[in-house]
């Protein structure tokens, strides 16, 4: 599809900065419609997501398998930079995806694991159990979702892990104010 040529920007020069303004190059995509003709694209997208949700259990299991594989590599060969990055990325993806897939508690435990990897002064000195328990909890929450989620065990487990991880991170970062500030700062995600 041929695109309209973007309009030339208008530049105002000042002592230490330029202000560059251009007529809205995406204006062609804004339409006026009568109220009665308006559809609801958000509702349409939510329905499409619901239609896709039959895939989510398998996708969550695949994310879990990736995390387990990353952890196995560390158990066998230690914390190489590549192994650390892969464990972080696997946990980080679960943190971002799990709530969408219907496993919010697994996402919370993965968030806690990400915080350990990101803020521990030396990942190799983190108590092995702390990392192992996070990985195992995420796997258990996903595996046993239908059994344990009804009675709130998954949320309790994630919250407990987060508490233990935060206590550890606060203790080991007592002389690293920038990390301490990040650990104690509230999340920008409501309800997290």
């Amino acid at each position, binding site marked *: 599809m041929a695109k309209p040529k973007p309009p030339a920007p208008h530049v105002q020069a000042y002592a*230490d900065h330029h202000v*560059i303004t251009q007529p809205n190059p995406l204006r062609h*995509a804004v*339409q006026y419609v009568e109220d009665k003709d308006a559809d609801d694209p958000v509702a349409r997208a939510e329905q499409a997501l619901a239609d896709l949700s039959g895939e989510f259990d398998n996708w969550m299991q695949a994310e879990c398998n990736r995390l387990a594989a990353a952890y196995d590599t560390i158990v066998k060969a230690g914390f190489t930079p590549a192994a650390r990055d892969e464990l972080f990325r696997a946990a980080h993806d679960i*943190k971002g995806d799990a709530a*969408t897939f219907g496993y919010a508690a697994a996402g919370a435990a993965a968030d806690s694991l990400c915080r350990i990897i990101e803020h521990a002064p030396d990942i190799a000195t983190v108590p092995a159990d702390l990392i192992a328990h996070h990985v195992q909890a995420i796997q258990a929450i996903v595996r046993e979702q239908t059994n344990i989620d009804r009675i709130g065990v998954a949320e309790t487990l994630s919250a407990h892990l987060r508490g233990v991880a935060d206590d550890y991170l606060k203790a080991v970062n007592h002389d690293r104010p920038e990390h301490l500030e990040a650990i104690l700062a509230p999340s920008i995600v409501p309800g997290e």
Partner: protein
Amino acid sequence: MYRIDFNKLRFLVSDDNPHMRRILRTLLHSFGAREVYEAEDGATALEMFSHYVPDIVITDWAMPIFDGLELAQMIRQPDANGNPYAPIIMLTGHSEKRRVTLARDAGVTEFLAKPISAKGLHQRIMNVVTNPRPFIKTKNYFGPDRRRNVNSSYVGPERRTGNKADIMQQPSLMDKARMPG
């Protein structure tokens, strides 16, 4: 009322996670978009950005080769090929204020923390399409104006030298469209 014709917009989605790419594609197609290009790492995204010249970039932060932050910095090169003014929406699992500041200073236009929602994504796209901000170029920054509001209670030093242009407020396209004449 005003709405976006997604059919007239070209998207580039950059995320190393295939599940998230599928979700984004599903959402964008449901909104009405037809042109959605996908990259699984920052390097591929940059190549596709130059080749397809997308209207809007949606990128993850944590990706192999180079990440979403570096991608934003590479797009925001005023003399580079492609469109350095393209809106960039950072969609990420990072949810710390510090990360938002880093993204803003790399030239990211909007920030959307995962978990993703149809409403959140639509709102960010609506904002970049209807409320484009002027760009600011300084010695060490090129990107959308980082001052979204005028804070009348601000008492610190003025860091931009100049006169009235220090106030960067721009009426939105919506507001302009509603103005008579």
